[in-house]
């Protein structure tokens, strides 16, 4: 049975140095539940170590987690990469992370990079600065992600920094993203009139939350799917087998004008 599922596929944890220290797994899951999120993407900068903790806590609340990371490519473009399960995230995420330059984080400048478990015990600190570009091109990151059966979604493409369109001007011909993420500042209609090249791509919007209050967004992405899994999201982004994706105002409880309401 297909049903509507509210998603936020771009949330940072305390592992991202730029995220607030309030972004612990418990608080994130509580905020996601309060905002009616059924599918949560945990995407720290070039790192994945806090995904298992959030996924374990989210499962107790009936919230599914897409295991992912926000990779910064050689071109300084941010991309959301998602993997089918925690095991593949651990393998491929680590492969990508290994391409970070060995520059040590300075917490007093960039912020702490905290690794925690589901009980929010501090397991350690990531010492390599995560706010950096991996030595991999966009296309290489796409290939690595796809080989693992993953999803490849360039992030906040309308923003003036760290974005596909700002840094590279147009969508490169060899790129076949599953979708493009637009920031919460614009509607899909506005973004398509600003960037006509985006016509024809599936769009999602996310909070890119670095603090808890960010999870309350003006617009949200809803998937019409059979289950909160990566395989179903792939179908929805491709518009296959009756699955679909829409961006609606958060003033609406659900995409009420479409069939299959919750």
């Amino acid at each position, binding site marked *: 049975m297909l049903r509507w599922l509210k998603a936020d596929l771009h949330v940072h944890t305390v592992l991202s140095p730029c995220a607030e220290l309030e972004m612990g797994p418990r608080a994130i899951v509580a905020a996601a539940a309060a905002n009616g999120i059924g599918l949560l993407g945990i995407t720290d900068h070039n790192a994945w170590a806090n995904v298992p903790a959030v996924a374990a806590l989210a499962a107790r609340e009936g919230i599914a987690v897409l295991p992912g990371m926000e990779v910064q490519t*050689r*071109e*300084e473009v941010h991309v959301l990469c998602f993997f089918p399960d925690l095991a593949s995230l651990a393998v491929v995420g680590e492969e990508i992370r290994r391409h970070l330059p060995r520059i040590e984080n300075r917490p007093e400048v960039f912020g702490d990079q905290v690794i925690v478990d589901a009980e929010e015990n501090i397991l350690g600190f990531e010492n390599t600065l995560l706010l950096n570009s991996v030595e991999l*091109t*966009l*296309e290489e990151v796409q290939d690595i992600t796809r080989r693992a059966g993953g999803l490849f979604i360039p992030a906040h493409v309308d923003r003036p920094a760290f974005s596909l*369109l*700002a*840094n*590279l*001007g*147009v969508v*490169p011909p*060899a790129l076949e993203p599953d979708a493009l993420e637009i920031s919460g500042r614009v509607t899909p209609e506005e973004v398509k009139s600003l960037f006509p090249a985006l016509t024809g791509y599936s769009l999602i919007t996310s909070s890119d939350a670095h603090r808890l209050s960010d999870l309350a967004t003006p617009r949200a992405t809803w998937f019409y799917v059979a289950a909160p899994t990566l395989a179903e999201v792939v179908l929805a982004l491709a518009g296959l087998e009756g699955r679909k994706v829409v961006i609606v105002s958060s003033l609406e409880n659900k995409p009420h004008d479409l069939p299959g309401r919750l």
Partner: protein
Amino acid sequence: MQLKTLLEAPELGLNLKAGRSGLEREVRGGYTSDLLSHVMSRAREGDLWVTVQAHQNIVAVAVLLNLAGIIIAGGIEPQEDTLSKADAEGVTIFTTNLPAFEVVGRLYALGIRASNSYAALAQG
């Protein structure tokens, strides 16, 4: 000034990587930025573009604006797909080990100016 004159200028340390056919191109001015969206809206036809961005989209931008050529600075090696596309499109690409700041300074000393500098000054 032609591109081949710059290639022969020892102080720039240029290596020709692609687009040999374009070496006769006249350089009318210069532009530098690593954000291709900026380049697309601000560089001018005939500009020599200095960047550290090596993605193949730099070739598309150079074709779009009919730029004189591209210098990839800072010892960065462009990807193979960037170079093959540049050869196919006839876009000249040089690399140099000099940092971008130093390359631009030396180009300026050779007499190359930003072709849109007067417009920028007029805007205050």
